[in-house]
C-alpha cells in the first residue's frame, strides 16, 4: 500500500471522518444559547432513546442509544431536544459533498461518518494528514461543527484512530505503530465485539486486543465460532483487507420506530408499517432511486431482533407496494400478539430510477399509487411533511407525531 514517494504519509491513505456528537452539535449550532450546556437529542417520551449528546452531557455518563429515562437520571439538568432529521440530513449532504471533492472513494457509514481513500488525492491536496486537517477546517468553517479524523492504512484502524482522537482531533497511526496502538485497547474496541462476545472473551481472560493477538487462532475459533474467531484474530493483528467501497448499488434506505410502549396489536403495527413504508418510499423518490428488496425489522419486548426480506419482481419507489410487502413479511412471522418494541422498514438494492425499465401491468390505472404519492411529495414541499398522507395515518388516537425515536439512515 505504498503510494507516491513524494507524500510523506502515503502509507496511510485511509481516512475515517466522524462528526463529534453530530445531532447535538447541529442543535447547538442552530440554537447558540445551548453552547456549553449538556444537550441530549432524542425522544423525550419515557420510551425515548438518546440519539446524540454533547460532550458536556457525556461527562455525566450519557451515551447514544441509552434509554432517555436513564439519561435523565444521570444528568437531570440536561436540555433535551427532539431530533430534527431534516436539518441533520442537510448538513450531512454538505459534508458528503465536501468529501466527494477530495476523492471519489467515499464510503458513507451513516449520516455523519465516512471512510475516504485519498490515495489519488495526494498530488492536489497534500498527504493524508494534510487532507485530514483541511477537511476538519472546512467542516468547522462551513458547518460550524467539529469532527475527528483517523488516518491509517486500513479501515478498521482508521476508525479506531478517529475514536481515539475525539473530540475535535486527528490521529494518524502509521503501519509500524499499529500494534502499539491496538494492543492496549480493550477488546470491546474491536469491530464486531458486542456485549455478548466481550463477555465470552472476558470469561477466557482476554481483556485487551493484545490478549486476543496472543491467543492461538484455533482457541478463538473454538470459543467464538469459525467466522467470528478468525475475524477477531485478524483484526487483533491490525489486518483488515477491506477496501473503501463507494459502491452505490447496494445502498439502502429505510426508517424505524420504537413504540412509546410495547405494542401487540397488529392493527397498530400495520399502521406503523404503512407510515414507515411511506417514509421509505419518500426517501427513494427524493434520491431518484427505486429498490427491489424490502426488509422489515422487528424487535420484541425482550430485545430479540429479527429481520425478514423479500425481493420484488420489479423495482419500486411506491410506498403502497413497499407497505404490502412489509405486511406480507410481518404477517408471515405468524406472531400471536407478541409484544413488540420496534419495527423498521428498509428498501435495499437501490438503483437509479431513470435507468430502470418498468414492466407495465395489465389493468393498472394510468394514474395509480405512484402518481398519488408524487403529488403528496409535492404537497409536502409546500405545506410540510405529512400534509397529505394515507387516511389510516390521519386518525391517530394521540394527536401529534409519535414520541419515540425515529432513525432514518442511509448506509
Amino acid at each position, binding site marked *: 500500500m505504498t503510494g507516491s514517494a513524494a507524500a510523506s504519509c502515503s502509507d496511510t491513505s485511509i481516512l475515517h471522518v466522524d462528526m463529534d456528537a453530530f445531532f447535538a452539535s447541529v442543535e447547538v449550532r442552530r440554537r447558540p444559547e445551548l453552547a456549553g450546556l449538556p444537550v441530549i437529542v432524542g425522544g423525550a417520551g419515557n420510551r425515548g432513546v438518546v440519539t446524540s449528546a454533547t460532550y458536556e452531557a457525556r461527562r455525566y455518563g450519557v451515551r447514544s442509544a441509552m434509554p432517555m429515562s436513564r439519561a435523565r437520571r444521570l444528568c437531570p439538568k440536561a436540555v433535551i431536544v427532539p431530533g430534527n432529521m431534516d436539518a441533520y440530513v442537510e448538513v450531512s449532504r454538505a459534508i458528503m459533498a465536501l468529501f466527494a471533492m477530495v476523492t471519489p472513494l467515499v464510503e458513507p457509514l451513516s449520516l455523519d461518518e465516512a471512510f475516504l481513500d485519498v490515495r489519488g488525492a495526494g498530488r492536489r491536496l497534500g498527504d493524508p494528514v494534510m487532507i485530514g486537517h483541511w477537511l476538519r477546517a472546512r467542516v468547522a468553517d462551513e458547518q460550524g461543527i467539529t469532527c475527528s479524523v483517523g488516518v491509517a492504512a486500513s479501515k478498521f484502524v482508521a476508525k479506531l484512530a478517529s475514536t481515539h482522537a475525539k473530540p475535535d482531533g486527528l490521529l494518524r497511526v502509521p503501519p509500524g505503530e499499529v500494534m502499539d496502538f491496538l494492543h492496549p485497547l480493550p477488546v470491546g474496541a474491536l469491530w464486531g465485539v458486542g456485549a455478548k462476545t466481550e463477555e465470552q472473551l472476558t470469561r477466557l481472560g482476554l481483556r485487551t486486543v493484545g490478549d486476543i493477538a496472543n491467543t492461538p487462532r484455533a482457541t478463538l475459533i473454538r470459543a467464538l465460532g469459525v467466522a467470528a474467531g478468525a475475524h477477531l484474530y485478524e483484526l487483533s493483528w491490525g489486518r483488515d483487507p477491506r477496501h473503501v467501497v463507494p459502491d452505490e448499488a447496494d445502498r439502502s434506505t429505510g426508517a424505524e420506530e420504537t413504540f412509546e410502549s410495547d405494542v401487540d396489536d397488529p392493527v397498530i403495527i400495520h399502521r406503523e408499517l404503512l407510515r414507515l413504508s411511506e417514509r421509505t418510499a419518500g426517501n427513494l423518490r427524493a434520491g431518484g432511486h427505486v429498490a427491489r428488496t424490502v426488509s422489515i425489522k422487528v424487535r420484541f419486548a425482550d430485545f430479540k431482533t429479527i429481520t425478514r426480506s423479500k425481493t420484488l*419482481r*420489479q423495482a419500486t419507489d411506491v410506498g403502497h407496494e413497499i407497505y404490502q410487502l412489509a405486511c406480507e413479511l410481518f404477517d408471515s412471522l405468524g406472531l400471536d400478539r407478541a409484544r413488540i418494541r420496534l419495527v423498521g422498514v428498509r428498501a435495499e438494492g437501490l438503483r437509479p430510477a*431513470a*435507468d*430502470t*425499465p*418498468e*414492466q*407495465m*401491468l*395489465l*389493468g*393498472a390505472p394510468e394514474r395509480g399509487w405512484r402518481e398519488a404519492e408524487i403529488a403528496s411529495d409535492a404537497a409536502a414541499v409546500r405545506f410540510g411533511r405529512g400534509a397529505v398522507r394515507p387516511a389510516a395515518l390521519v386518525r391517530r388516537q394521540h394527536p401529534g407525531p409519535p414520541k419515540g425515536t425515529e432513525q432514518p439512515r442511509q448506509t
Partner: protein
Amino acid sequence: MKFRVERDALANAVAWTARSLPARPPVPVLAGLVLSVEADTLEVSGFDYEVSTQAELPVHAASSGRTLVSGRLLADITKSLPPHPVDVAVDGPRLSINCGNARFSLPTLPVEDYPALPTMPSTAGTVAASVFAEAVGQVAIAAGRDDTLPMLTGVRIEIEADTITLVATDRFRLALREFTWKPSTPGASAAILVPARTLADAAKTLTGGSEVTVSLSSSGVGEGLLGLSGQGKQTTTRLLDAEFLKYRSILPPEFSSHAELDVAAFTEAAKRVALVAERWAPLRCEFSDGAVTLRAGGDEESQAEERCEVVFEGETTTIGFNPAFLLDGLAAVHSETARLEMTTPLKPAVLSAVGGDGDAATYRYLIMPVRLPS
C-alpha cells in the same frame, strides 16, 4: 382379482392416471392407484383431492375385485415391462405382476381407506380434441405461476351458446382464444376458472380420440367441478374460486400502428438479441417503415442489435417488451405471419395470426410493454 391385459394399454393407462398422484401425499393411501376389475374392464384411478383421473381398458378377467398399490412404483414397473401380455393378480395382501419372464410382487394398501372419487358432473357438450388441445395450449402460457394470486393461475372458460372463449393472464400478458363446440343444451352459458396447469396437462393428453366431452357441475355454490373425458379416460378438477380480471374493458378497441412479421425470422432475431438481455431487461423494438430494429443490453453491459424486415404502417414507434413474453406469444400464434398492433409505447400491444381462418384467427396475445429507460 385376476386378469390378463395387453402391455402397452396397461402402461399407458397407468402413466396417465399417475399424473394426478400428489408429490407429497397428505395421507399415505393417496400415493396409491386403485385397480378395479369388473366384467372384462379394468379401471385405473388416482386422486389428490384437487384432480381425479380415471382410465378404462379392456382385459381378460378371471375374477373381479378392487385393490390399491403404490402408484409411482406401478407406473415405473409397467413402463419397463417387456413386450408380452401382462398377468395381474391379487394374492392375499400382495399384488403380483407377471410379464414374460419378469415377476413383481407389490404390497397392497388398504383400499377401503381410499377416498371416493368425485362423480363426473353432467355433460355440457363436446369439442374436437385437436382444437381443444391447441386452444388450451395457446392460452395457458399466459397464466401466472404465483399461487398467492389464484385468479392469475387459472384459465377462464366462458361458454356462450356454441362458442367457448378461453382467457388467461398474469397481468404482463393476456391470451385469448375462441372456438366453437357442440353444447348439449342450446344457449348454454357459463363462466368458470380452471387451474391452468391441470387444464393444459389434461387437454394435451386427451388427444387420443376425436372428441373431448366437457362436463360441468352447474351449481353456483359449493364445489365447482370441471370434467373432461375422451377415449376411455376421464379427469375432474376443482375450480378456482376467484374473480377474474375484467379483461374485456382493458382490451384496446383500436390501434394506431401495426406491423406484419414473418414469425420464424422475427423469432430467430428476437432470440439472438435477447441473449444479451439480463433478467427482466427489455428488448427494444424500433419499428419504422419496412423494418424493425431489435436492441438489447446497456452501456456498461453487452449489447446486441438486429434489423428485421417487416411491413409496418403507422408512426415510427419504439416499444420495449420482456423478450420471454414476446417469444411466448410468437410461439403460440401458430401462423407463418403475425400481426402486431400498437398504440403508444406504454399501452398494450396485440399479436394475432395473419391469413388464418375460422377459429384459429380468433387468437389474441396481448402483451404489456416495458417502459424503456430514458
